[in-house]
């Protein structure tokens, strides 16, 4: 288990929080607790209430979607990435299922406490939301490229 002093250092080194102000790191550290997931453990399911936001410290997580009775892996996340951005939205539920592909070590943050902290200190909230927006934008872009099916023998889908 990470001690509180080391927790601050761990957060400072996490890629998602690069450039975060020290005071904001301290605020996050006060809310963080370390969690572990076993290989193949489902971390959350699609439609679950968005309760936790995670910063992955080690291991690999798959985002999965089930359609027509099939489960498809659409993205994998690794150390230095975040998981569960929807917990920052009060009325949101999980958009994908998340499954640990390896043993995963992460820091977990309660979504309600995180939202409360954002309300209490707008500068903290803005810094966090900017990073989350960047994550959402890059995933949206990646999914658009996936939809194009670039490597299809027929070439990218254009209609």
């Amino acid at each position, binding site marked *: 288990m990470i001690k509180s002093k080391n927790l601050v250092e761990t957060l400072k080194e996490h890629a998602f929080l690069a450039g975060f102000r020290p005071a904001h790191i301290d605020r996050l550290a006060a809310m963080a607790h370390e969690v572990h997931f076993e290989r193949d453990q489902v971390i959350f399911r699609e439609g679950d209430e968005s309760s936790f936001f995670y910063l992955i410290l080690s291991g690999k997580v798959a985002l999965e979607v089930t359609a027509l009775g099939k489960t498809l892996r659409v993205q994998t996340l690794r150390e230095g990435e975040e998981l569960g951005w929807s917990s920052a939205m009060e009325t949101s539920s999980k958009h994908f299922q998340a499954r640990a592909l390896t043993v995963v070590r992460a820091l977990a943050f309660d979504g309600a406490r995180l939202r409360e902290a954002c309300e209490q200190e707008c500068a903290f909230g803005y810094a966090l939301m900017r990073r989350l927006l960047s994550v959402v934008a890059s995933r949206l872009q990646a999914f658009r490229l*996936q939809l194009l099916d670039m490597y299809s023998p027929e070439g990218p889908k254009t209609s």
Partner: protein
Amino acid sequence: MSALTLAPPDVMIPVAARLATVDKETHDTFTLTLAANSREQELPAFAPGQFSMLYVFATGELPISISGDPAERGKLVYTVRSVGKVTHALVTSRPGESIGVRGPFGTAWPLKESYGRDVLIVAGGIGLAPLRPAILHVLRHRGDYGRLIVLYGARSPQDLLFRKQLSAWNYVPDTLIINTVDYGGLSWRGNVGVVTTLFRHVRLQPARTTAMVCGPEIMMRYVVRELLARGLSDEDIHLSMERNMKCAVGFCGHCQLGPYFVCKDGPIFTYGKLKRWMDRYEL
């Protein structure tokens, strides 16, 4: 037209080589090895990134990048995806049959210019094939280069090319190979996501990195954005372009791209040369 642009006549005449082996890479992609037809015949040397015109007699001719090791003389290796009449005829040819070869043609990956620098390879789908000679060259001359990073994306785990080699290369010092697939089933435990998502897992030193990129043009467009955002210059980004090459010597004009003929001015271009012409409608 200047006399310099006229090709000597023998460049247009295919030389018959013997198909030595056909190896299945994936459900639709095969690696073909051509060898000399006789003791007297010598197959030409090539530079990584160059292509040949392969002629299946009575069927047709098409440009195929060379995917073998440039240090291995006496054979020419091509990795071909069966997507049309000629490629299907190529991959269903039997060892011992003759295949017509012209070339090699075109520009090469900037391997001499990259001495002492990190080499970043970004490949998508069959685009790994023209990059494999460059990877093999760097591995053979490992001390001459800095880090070798290969980011490779394919459609699915079943579509990943050269899987055994990719795994083996990861054990070479200062070499990092990361694969990803656009869609993975439940049995796939590797990375899932488009190739651009892999940039988050590597730390580049932009001033000393040369990037070599090959894949569908739309993929290359997004890869270029990632490279520029990470500080690489236009001249340190090299792209392999694909067009409808026919004569392969800049004579017929079928492969024109802006002011360039892809067959003789390319297929490898710096992004600096290409940026005005990439993704222009009807170019």
